[in-house]
């Protein structure tokens, strides 16, 4: 196998219970040939960082619809860096106002996907920008 699957963690940090988007994306990326670790609802930033470390993922995808992204995302990025995982790509999906994008990118987020993004778009972005570990 020369083409190793890209391994993606899909997590829903915070307290909103709207996980349909995350589940559909997890399944959709599986169908696009990714290895997807789905960790479910109500993740603390520590849970996300631990899962990313133990699973040795290439990408962390965060789904947030609660509006708490400006608190949760920078915290997760900081924890990943503290664990030595600064080479892991972080992408965020959900309801993210355009005004917040710059600050999130500053914190270490590389891709932001709002409502209406197709699975093919996300898959294309990850294939173009993430690289699987040797």
């Amino acid at each position: 196998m020369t083409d190793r699957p890209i391994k993606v963690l899909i997590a829903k940090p915070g307290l909103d219970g709207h996980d349909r988007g995350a589940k559909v994306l997890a399944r959709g990326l599986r169908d696009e040939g990714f290895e997807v670790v789905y960790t479910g609802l109500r993740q603390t930033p520590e849970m996300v960082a631990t899962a990313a470390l133990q699973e040795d993922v290439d990408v962390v995808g965060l789904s947030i619809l609660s509006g708490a992204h400006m608190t949760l995302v920078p915290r997760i990025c900081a924890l990943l860096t503290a664990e030595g995982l600064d080479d892991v790509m972080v992408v965020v999906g959900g309801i993210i106002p355009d005004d917040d994008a710059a600050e999130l990118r500053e914190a270490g987020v590389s891709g932001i996907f709002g409502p209406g993004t197709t699975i093919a778009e996300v898959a294309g972005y990850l294939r173009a920008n993430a690289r699987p570990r040797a």
Partner: protein
Amino acid sequence: MGASGVQTPDPAERARELTDAATTGDRRALARLLTAIENRSAVAEAALRRLYPMAGAAHLVGITGAPGAGKSTLVAALIAEARKAGRSVGVVAVDPSSPITGGALLGDRVRMQAYASDRDVFIRSMASRGHAGGLASTSAAAASVLDACGFDLVLLETVGTGQSEVEVAAAADTTVVLEAPEMGDEIQAIKAGLLEVADIVVVNKGDRPGAQRTASQLRAMLVAVARVGAADRAHHGPAGSTVAGSGAAGSVAAGSEVVDRAASPAPAPDPRPRPKQPEVLVTTATTGGGIPELLASLDRHRAAGRDSSVAAARLARAEAQVWAILEDRMRAELSGPERRAGTEAVLRAVADHELDPFAAVDRLLGSLRG
């Protein structure tokens, strides 16, 4: 492989770095090692060679059973129980890869989230990646890495379909087969397959109606099978053989959940493998019901079998590993640059019915010797 080679370090060097770090508690290095093993990279072989002498102290427990029986929930409950006893736990949870796209959805962590800040719990999901012998090869190797890194208890959770349960039995010291209530009648118990490899049978979802009935049926059937087996063996044993009671471990009393081991005297040695006589337990993994008993049963199996069944399991594991590597190596030799053309010609001749497959293998083996 290797085409990227910008500043790729020597695999042996990289393996040394990673194994030194992983065995001294660096969890990120451990995670990277497991990735190398999943990818079957050159680092993996060098690392496994270094780690092999350090492994062997952990109790490797395989957990298998039909999808939905509650394997992940049971693993989570076992982690909780083992942590209470101060034991560190490593988990390898395998989920299937899509044979069509190669993708996989690994969802076992969902039920194992409570240990994010506990350094003595390490959970790794692995996709089966479509290797026919997927479990035997990469996840058994992953389990041995966790073993070498000092985890006391290593749980290996299977996909739960097809032949994976037989593979998990080869990879584990103790194999737990999980059943859900009312999953089938007694006939399921005497069919070949799952129950044949069980050291411990767990009927999970013990709060559901029918759980105790399912457990009773399984016990009755397993005892009957063992009795018939023993009688059969005695009947066919050499005449006049001494009937030395093997001390027959007898019923290890730990509440009513434990089945009596048939206490018949041991007949003369029989070349056929003795059928296992698994304990049957009832658990409710969601609430932790029956989990202390299960952990105790695991410990008993390991202690009782240290000289016999666990040793046999370890020998079987060594055999499986060596044969798998041998097969890989032969395949690599035969499809390598030197022999590829010859191998392909032989395969084509078989496809065209010019050569039978047996003669083809003779020829390929000959080319390896030559």
